[in-house]
């Protein structure tokens, strides 16, 4: 029965994508992207990917919408009329779609336990995680320990992207968030009392929930990536209702930059500590005398590093856009 719900949600997903394609108002397109993300999270959850759904929830519903709207506010909210129809792309795209659909007939069916993906590596992870790492959430175990290199790479992609955005938007000092002054005219939603009070009530809960996701990630769905996105969503809410300058007073731009570097540094430092203790890079078993306790310590530390960097990058990107808007 749930499978049928999944099919229905997938159909809605296709309809939304077509809607995004046809929307000429970019505002409408961004809002449909928000819906798209909500549908995506539902389908992830239906397909047993709780951690991924949580990430999509934290990123798609909060941060992505806000960033897209920030960019729209700096550019234009209307798309020009498309003058001509693009026949060649339509033909190419349709033919490719049909080819991919034709190719899928050889694919294993959804949920087939005999599918090749389920034969290698994954069973080992599932059976060995309790023995080697002893935490219930296998996703966190793989992310932080078994495939620690991979996550390190991803973290540095985020790190680099964050630095890139800051280079693009805040190089001239007049437009940097460092010089952002309170401006009562554009100060968030200050004049809207009801949303403001409820929003203020909500901010601590979002941040608290973010911390819970950060430190409970070994036992339930969660971890540094989700927590970073959630916590930055909380601060973005604060910035929306109280104005960016007020938010920067709580977590200044320098602190955010510090968080970005500290997080990345912490990750590498844990890896190097493994070498110093006579193991391999990112081998946590040698961190403490008891290998399992060492694994736990390593995972907590690198998840903390991931959380710090993700929070720092997302928030400083948000502030960079906001400062650009206020000075333009």
């Amino acid at each position, binding site marked *: 029965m749930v499978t049928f*719900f999944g099919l*229905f949600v997938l159909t809605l997903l296709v309809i939304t994508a077509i*809607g995004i394609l046809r929307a000429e108002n970019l505002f409408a397109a961004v809002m449909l992207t928000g*819906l798209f993300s909500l549908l995506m999270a*539902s389908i992830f959850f239906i397909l047993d990917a709780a951690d991924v*759904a949580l990430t999509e929830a934290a990123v798609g*519903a909060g941060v992505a919408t806000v960033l897209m709207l920030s960019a729209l506010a700096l550019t234009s909210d209307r798309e020009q009329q498309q003058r001509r129809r693009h026949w060649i792309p339509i033909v190419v795209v349709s033919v490719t779609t049909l080819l991919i659909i034709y190719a899928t007939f050889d694919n294993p069916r959804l949920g087939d336990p005999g599918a090749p993906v389920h034969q290698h590596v994954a069973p080992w992870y599932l059976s060995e995680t309790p023995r080697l790492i002893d935490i219930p959430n296998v996703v966190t175990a793989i992310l932080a320990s078994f495939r620690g290199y991979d996550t390190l790479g991803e973290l540095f992609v985020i790190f680099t992207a964050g630095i890139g955005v800051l280079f693009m938007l805040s190089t001239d000092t007049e437009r940097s968030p460092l010089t952002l002054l309170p401006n009562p005219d554009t100060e*968030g939603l200050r004049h809207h009392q009801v949303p403001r009070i409820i929003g203020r009530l909500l901010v601590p809960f979002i941040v608290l929930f973010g911390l819970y996701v950060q430190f409970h990630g070994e036992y339930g769905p969660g971890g540094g990536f989700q927590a970073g996105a959630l916590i930055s969503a909380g601060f973005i809410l604060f910035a929306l209702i109280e104005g960016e300058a007020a938010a920067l007073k709580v977590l200044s731009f320098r602190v955010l930059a510090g968080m970005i570097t500290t997080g990345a540094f912490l990750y590498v430092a844990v890896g190097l500590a493994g070498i110093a203790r006579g193991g391999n890079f990112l081998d946590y078993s040698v961190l403490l005398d008891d290998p399992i306790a060492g694994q736990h310590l390593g995972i907590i530390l690198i998840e903390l590093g991931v959380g710090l960097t993700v929070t720092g990058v997302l928030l400083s990107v948000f502030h960079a856009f906001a400062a650009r808007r206020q000075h333009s």
Partner: protein
Amino acid sequence: MFHAAAAAIIVTMALALARALLGPTVYDRVLAVNMFGTKTALLLSVIAFLYGRTDFLDLALAYALINFIGVLAVLKFVQDFTIRHKEAEHKD
């Protein structure tokens, strides 16, 4: 009975999606997105029970917390846009 509730919620999601696609004003779309967010939180709770893994209610909790941000952000930017367009009209 979980199925009945889940089905009702999913059908409502489809209706909200139709509203978001039809518009016509930006506020209708925001309304649809907001509805969609609460429906997603409900759907995730119901499916957590269907799967018998109630420890995944965290997800629904995340949606209940985050959904509000999108609506507020849209409102703030709509407000800014209206101010900007009015200023542009004054300049003409």
